[in-house]
C-alpha cells in the first residue's frame, strides 16, 4: 500500500510540475485582442498576456472551446469588455474552476468602468429590435480616447493585484499616454479630411469611431443590429446612399461581403473591409495599429 501511495505521489507531482508555468510572471487573459494589446502595453515585461477571441472572430459569437477554459485555469486576472458584449466568458470561468477570477473578485476586471457608453436603449428592449445590447453600445474600444480610460483602469487594477510592479505599470501608462497624444497629432490631418462625411456601415459597430471622426454612420446595411440584410432593406439603403451621395461603405472582416458589394455596384460607393479589433487583419498587431490602419484607409478612400 505504501509503495502504491509513493508511486501515485510521484506521478501526481510530475503532472503538477509539467503543468506549472515556466515563468513566475502573472498571467492576464483578456476576452478580446484590443484589451490584450493595452494590457500588454501596461503590463510590459512584468505580465504575460493572452486572449480568448482571436482578432478575425466576431466577438458577439465566439465559439467556446475547452481550450479557452484552459487559458483561464492558471490566469491571475481576466479582463472583459463588459456591457453584455462578452458574457460568454462566465461559463468559461465556471469550467476553468478558477475561483480567483470570478466576478466580484479584484482579478475580474470589467474594462468599461469610466467609459461613456452610447446608444443605451430607452424604454422596452426586446429582440424585435434585433441584437440590441441592453447596456448600450459595447464597441467603445473604437474610440482611442476610451483606450486611454481602459489603460488607466488596468494600471490601477494591476497595481492592486501585483503591487510589486506598480511603479512599472505607472511608467508604462505614462508612455501610453504620450504615444496616444503623439498619434492623435499624427491622425489629425487625416481626421480633418474625413470629418463631416456620411459613411454607410454594415453593422452598428462603429458608433464610437463615428464620434471620434465626427462622421455620420447612421445608414446601416443590416435592417436591425445582428439581423442579416434583406433585399427590401438593401433597396432602401441604395436609394438613401444615392440621394445623400454617400461615397463609402465600411464593414468588419467577419461579415459577409456580398451585400456591401451589391450596394456598391448599384450606387458607385466604395467598400472598405476594416478590422474591428486588433489582429483582425495582418499588420494590425497593436491598439495603435488599429487606428493607423483604419484612419488611413478611410482617408485614402475619401481624399
Amino acid at each position, binding site marked *: 500500500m505504501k509503495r502504491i501511495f509513493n508511486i501515485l505521489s510521484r506521478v501526481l507531482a510530475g*503532472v*503538477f510540475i*509539467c*503543468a506549472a508555468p515556466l515563468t513566475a510572471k502573472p498571467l492576464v487573459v483578456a476576452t478580446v485582442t484590443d484589451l490584450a494589446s493595452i494590457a500588454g502595453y501596461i503590463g510590459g515585461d512584468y505580465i504575460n498576456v493572452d486572449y480568448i477571441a*482571436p482578432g*478575425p*472572430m*466576431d466577438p458577439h*459569437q*465566439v*465559439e*467556446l*472551446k*475547452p*481550450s479557452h*477554459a*484552459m487559458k483561464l*485555469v492558471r490566469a491571475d486576472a481576466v479582463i472583459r469588455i463588459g456591457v*453584455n458584449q462578452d*458574457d*460568454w466568458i*462566465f*461559463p*468559461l470561468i*465556471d*469550467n*476553468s*474552476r478558477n*475561483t480567483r477570477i*470570478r466576478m*466580484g473578485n479584484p482579478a475580474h476586471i470589467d474594462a468599461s468602468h469610466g467609459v461613456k457608453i452610447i446608444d443605451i436603449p430607452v424604454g422596452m*428592449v*426586446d*429582440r424585435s429590435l434585433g*441584437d440590441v445590447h*441592453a447596456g448600450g453600445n459595447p464597441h467603445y474600444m473604437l474610440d482611442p480616447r476610451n483606450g486611454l480610460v481602459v489603460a488607466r483602469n488596468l494600471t490601477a487594477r494591476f497595481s492592486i493585484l501585483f503591487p510589486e510592479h506598480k511603479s512599472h505599470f505607472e511608467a508604462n501608462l505614462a508612455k501610453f499616454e504620450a504615444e496616444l497624444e503623439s498619434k492623435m497629432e499624427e491622425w489629425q490631418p487625416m481626421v480633418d479630411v474625413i470629418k463631416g462625411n456620411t459613411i454607410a456601415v454594415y453593422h452598428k459597430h462603429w458608433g464610437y469611431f463615428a464620434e471620434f471622426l465626427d462622421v455620420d454612420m447612421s445608414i446601416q446595411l443590416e435592417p436591425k443590429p*445582428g*439581423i*442579416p440584410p434583406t433585399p427590401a432593406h438593401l433597396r432602401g439603403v441604395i436609394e438613401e446612399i444615392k440621394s445623400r451621395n454617400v461615397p463609402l461603405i465600411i464593414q468588419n*472582416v*467577419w*461579415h*459577409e461581403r456580398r451585400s456591401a458589394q451589391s450596394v456598391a455596384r448599384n450606387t458607385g460607393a466604395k467598400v472598405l473591409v476594416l478590422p474591428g479589433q486588433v489582429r483582425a487583419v495582418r499588420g494590425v498587431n497593436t491598439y495603435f495599429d488599429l487606428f493607423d490602419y483604419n484612419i488611413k484607409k478611410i482617408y485614402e478612400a475619401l481624399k
Partner: protein
Amino acid sequence: MKSRLVLSVIGVFCAAALFAQGGGTQFGLSAENPGISVVGDFIGHYNITEDKGFLGIGEVELGFQAYVDPFARVDVFIGYHGIELAHHNHDDDDDDHEHGLEVEEAVLTLTSLPFGFQFSIGRMRSKIGFVNVLHLHDFHFAQYPMLIQEYWDHEGLITDGARLSWLAPLPIWVEFVVEGQSLLNQDAIDFVAPGMNIFIPIGDEMGISLSGFGYFDSGLEKGNELVNHLRGHVDDDEKADLENELAEIFENPAFGFGGWGAGLRYKWAPLSVGFMNHFVIQGEVMSRALGPDFYTGFYALAELKFLRRWTLGVMYNMWEVPHFHAHDDDDHHHHGDGAFEKEIESVFSAALSFYASEFQRIRLQYDMAMEHDETDHSLTLQWTFVLGPHAPHAY
C-alpha cells in the same frame, strides 16, 4: 426506510464529460433575477411510406439559470413534450412517455471547489458521450442519435443523482468525471459511470475531442428502451413468453458492468471567414447490456455550415437490438420460453437548416429507416425558437 440516496463520492478515476454548457447571458435582466429562457420547436412530420403526417408542438423548454451565491449555481429546465418523433413502431412506448410538463433538469453545481473539482447534485443529463449532455435543440438533427434513443430514452438519459468532475492540471483539457444515479428506485444508487473527456486544440481553427466512458448498473429493467423495444415487437401470443424470459433475466439483478462508449469529434471553424463556416465530423460507439448479452451500435455525422445562415448535415445510425423468438412445438404451441436474437437496424438522415436569425431556425430533415426488410421514408420540418438568454453552445 426508503430514502433517496445520492452518490457519496466513489473516487475519482476516469470519468467523462462533455464540455459543459454553463450559464446564460444576462441580456436585459436585472441582476436580481435568474436568466429566464424559453426554447421550443414546432414539428411537422410526414411519413412518405405510410402516407401519414401530423403537425404540432415538439417541445417547449423553460429555463431558469443563475448563481445562488458565490459558491454555487442552479440550472432548472421545465419541459413540455408534445410530439415525439420515432422511426419505429414503439407501441408499448406510448405508456412510458407521458406528454406534459415535467422537471427535466434541476441541478445545483458547486463552482468554487478547490483543486479543479466541481460537484453537481440533482436531476441532470448524464454526461455519457458527446450528445446525451446536449439539449435536443442544440443537436444537429431533429432527433437524438438512435443509440441514445434505443439504449437509453427518447430524451436521452436524465436521472437523479450526483456528479463529481476533476479538471487535470495539464496543458490540454482532460476532465475526469464520475457520476452516480438512481435509476430503478429510490433505495439505491444503481448506475455509476466513470469516464473521461479530452480536447486537443489544433491552432485557433481546429480541435479534436475524445470521449470515453463505462458504466455499472444493476439491470435497469424499468425504462430500459431495449426492453420496450422487445415488447413492441412481439405478437400478442408471444408476450407471456417474453415476460417470462425477462423475469428470469431481472430476477436477481446484480450490480455489474453494464456497457461502454467512446466518441471522436473533429471540428474546423476557419477564422478567415469568422463565424460563417464550419465543418464537424463526429462519431460515437456505445454498448449496452441486456441480461448476459451486449448490444452495440454507432452513429457518424457530418455537418457543414456552407453559408452564414445555412447548414447541411448527414448522419448514419446503425445499432443492434434484441428480438424475441418464442419456442414453438410442431403444433405452434408456445412452451413459455424463447430466445433473444440480435438484429441490426439503421437510419440515414439528412438535414438542411436555415437560421433566420441567431434565435430562430427552420430545419427540413429526411430520414430513411431500415428495419427487417422494410424501408421507411419520412420528412420532418422542425421550427425552433429561442426567447431570453441563451446559453452559449458547446464546442
